[in-house]
């Protein structure tokens, strides 16, 4: 009963799981060390004295979330740049060679961009689905969302947004901008290269840093 009360009070004062866990652990540690008899007023007093109250906790949470997001995007950018460093740059060099080979071989025979366009679409959709699967299925038992979901949502949405934009503006049959087939080939091949870099950087970031930051 007492624990439920504490859970309720802290739940009302926090937005993200990480802050909730931290404040909850702190309050219970303080209550355990305190000589005073448990009352709800005591819990509120701890929150007010130690954290400055609900408003302060929420304000600090927002600052924390912004900083963590910045840090994730910085790390994501680093991972993208890392794909151009040796020896991982080999993959990019192979991609460029593949790009050049496909482009020049398509000059005479024409280029069927459909399989490549479909492959890019599948990749960016799967990335988006990964976010929804993690957020709403794997993590469905969590009372509060994790602070890292805003980054995960933003970073997986970038790919699909860019793809939709490029598809409807340049690639599709009824594209908004009328471009010749040669330029269309260049756009599809370039999009494929960017998607590959974006996906590899995302996987690296997720594997390396996602569990370290805001555990």
């Amino acid at each position: 009963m007492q624990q439920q009360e504490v859970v309720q009070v802290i739940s009302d004062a926090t937005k993200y799981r990480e802050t909730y866990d931290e404040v909850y652990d702190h309050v219970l540690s303080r209550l355990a060390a305190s000589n005073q008899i448990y009352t709800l007023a005591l819990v509120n007093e701890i929150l007010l004295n130690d954290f400055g109250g609900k408003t302060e906790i929420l304000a600090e949470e927002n600052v924390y979330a912004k900083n963590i997001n910045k840090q994730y995007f910085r790390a994501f950018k680093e991972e993208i740049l890392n794909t151009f460093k040796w020896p991982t740059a080999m993959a990019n060099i192979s991609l460029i060679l593949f790009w050049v080979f496909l482009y020049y071989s398509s000059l005479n025979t024409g280029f069927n961009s459909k399989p490549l366009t479909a492959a890019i679409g599948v990749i960016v959709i799967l990335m988006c689905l990964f976010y929804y699967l993690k957020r709403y299925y794997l993590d469905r038992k969590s009372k509060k969302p994790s602070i890292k979901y805003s980054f995960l949502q933003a970073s997986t949405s970038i790919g699909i947004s860019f793809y939709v934009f490029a598809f409807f503006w340049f690639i599709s049959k009824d594209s908004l901008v009328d471009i010749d087939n040669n330029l269309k080939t260049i756009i599809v091949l370039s999009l494929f290269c960017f998607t590959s870099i974006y996906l590899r950087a995302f996987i690296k970031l997720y594997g390396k840093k996602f569990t370290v930051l805001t555990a």
Partner: protein
Amino acid sequence: MAVNNELFKGTLQTIILNLLSENERMYGYEITQKVKSITQGELLLKEGALYPALHKLEAGGLLETTTEVVDNRVRKYYSLSQNGEKEVVNKLQEAKDFINQLQLLLNLKASL
């Protein structure tokens, strides 16, 4: 006589980094208690200042975090990252230099 908390605000990050370099990993409440015990209650580290500082160091990549379930609740432990280990040396040197300068300044003033 209790130390004025305002005086050590600028060194809060150094204190945290140093504590974490001496203890492999610590959680928020543990840090406040450690400071209290080392300074024999003269210096009280307010949580309202501690957690923002911890989060800032974490977002800055100087701290790493792990979680563990203790007594049916999730406890978040902070430890130094590789960058944090390098930074603690710089921060300690900065603090030492500052203390030396402060001593020099205050001694000079006192002798005037």
